[in-house]
């Protein structure tokens, strides 16, 4: 008996050591942080170079008098001084804040409506058959089409802006959640059910976290749609009561035939869209994907 015990123990020790070795061999090698120089060279430098090239071409068009009409193409310096003037008058940040606060608030409303809507469409067959196709169809409807009816229904005020944002962003957010839920591997659902995660518990612990990447992609698109809808609304429906947002700035520039003001507005709209994406959505998406091992460093 003693001898079988000894063989058992030594066999066990053998298993343990082999297993430890195998674990060490097979566990993925995880690299540390990328050094800053590499990040700079791969991520930061290229867009700077691209911007400089565009500025250089633009300046060349002016300097070599290829386009010799400041009402068509202002020089970079003119646009720069437009920025400087707005900054010195203290209105630059006002323009940005008017639009950004509207855009983000509208986006939050869209989030609060689009999320439950997406859940219901994904989980209730009847609702899906009823409004699923409309919901995806709405995504291809330019949100500028909503501006005239919104003005007629709600008048020239902030609620009209929010209505346009909602109509633009809610379908994207809902659709993102629907496709995220559709792509949850059935295996996760089965595993959840064997552990007792059914019904609401299953939705909370399994379905929603599994659908998160698709949902985030929907949010990102939802923001882009919010921003675009808002700009359309601001350009078309400008009124002194509404304050001057970026869309109104663009419209004012057109009315004043000031091409440098128009350029200023376009740059600001582009800049804000990119900045929100880079500061909020991209890091969020990267974090989710990385924590699940779905982001491969190239």
């Amino acid at each position: 008996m003693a001898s079988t015990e000894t063989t058992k123990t030594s066999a066990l020790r053998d298993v343990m050591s082999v297993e430890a070795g195998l674990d060490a061999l097979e566990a993925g090698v995880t690299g540390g942080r990328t050094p800053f120089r590499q990040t700079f060279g791969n991520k930061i430098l290229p867009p700077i170079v691209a911007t400089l090239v565009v500025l250089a071409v633009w300046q060349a068009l002016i300097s070599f008098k290829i386009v010799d009409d400041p009402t068509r193409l202002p020089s970079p310096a003119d646009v720069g001084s437009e920025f400087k003037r707005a900054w010195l008058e203290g209105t630059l940040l006002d323009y940005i804040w008017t639009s950004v606060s509207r855009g983000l608030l509208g986006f939050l409303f869209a989030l609060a409506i689009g999320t439950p809507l997406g859940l219901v469409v994904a989980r209730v067959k009847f609702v899906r058959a009823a409004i699923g196709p409309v919901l995806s169809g709405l995504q291809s409807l330019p949100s500028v089409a909503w501006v005239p009816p919104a003005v007629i229904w709600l008048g020239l005020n902030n609620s009209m802006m929010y209505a346009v944002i909602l109509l633009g962003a809610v379908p994207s957010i809902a659709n993102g959640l629907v496709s995220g839920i559709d792509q949850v591997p059935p295996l996760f659902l089965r595993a959840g059910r064997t552990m007792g995660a059914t019904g609401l518990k299953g939705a909370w612990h399994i379905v929603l976290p599994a659908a998160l990447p698709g949902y985030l992609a929907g949010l990102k698109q939802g923001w882009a749609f919010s921003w675009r809808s808002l700009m359309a609304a601001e350009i078309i429906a400008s009124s002194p009561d509404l304050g001057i947002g970026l869309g109104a700035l663009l419209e004012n520039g057109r009315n004043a035939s000031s091409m440098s003001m128009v350029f200023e507005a376009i740059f600001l709209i582009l800049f804000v869209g990119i900045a929100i994406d880079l500061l909020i959505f991209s890091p969020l998406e990267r974090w989710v994907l990385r924590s699940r091992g779905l982001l491969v460093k190239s």
Partner: protein
Amino acid sequence: MSTTYVKAAESVEHAARLEHVSKSFAGPGGQQLVLDDISLDVAPGEFVTLLGASGCGKSTLLNLVAGLDKPSAGSITTHGRPALMFQEHALFPWLTAGKNIELALKLRGVPKSDRRGRAEQLLELVRLKGSYGKRVHELSGGMRQRVAMARALAQDSQLLLMDEPFAALDAITRDLLHDELTRIWEETGLSVLFVTHNVREAVRLAQRVVLLSSRPGRVAREWQVDIPQPRRIEDAPVAELSLEITEVLRGEIRRHGQH
């Protein structure tokens, strides 16, 4: 026609009892019988492997026992909800290894204060101490299956169902996991119903091997395996019995080619 969970307090004669279980699915040519009149008992603490070629309905049978599906006829009795392990690890990638185990504990109603300690204990049982905070993608295939095993054990069920859990692993890792499973089974006194198409694996692990015929699945034969543990897959007695079972299995498969 029913799947019944009996409370553990009642007399435990069987970890699982299948009586005249049949299952058919609606197929292209009408109803297709997948399982035909299967009766099978798993005693408490017993290790049974279900062996069969493709189309014998092994996985269907496990789904029925797990309560994921209902039998068309017959009854299945288990004590509480059985734990189920799949061929794929089925760990949730948004949780760490430890949190995966804690989710099983939480769904079972273990209070929050006890979960962390219990999860660490279970990780130690599958020899993954220190992997609590690891993400699923940071673990190797064998480590993932061990975490999945720990998560299944966290359900604290009398019966562990395993659906070809090692089929996707390489041979060395599989050998190790056989050793681990035998050890854990001996330590915990669990009943195990293990499905596989690998004859040697069946003989290596089980106290009893049940061979299912294919299309429809019926119990074709049973073998008691009296070879003492620890066994190795290359031991002579294991090989000998495997050969015998393989012959019968081949006979079963051959019948299908004749018409």
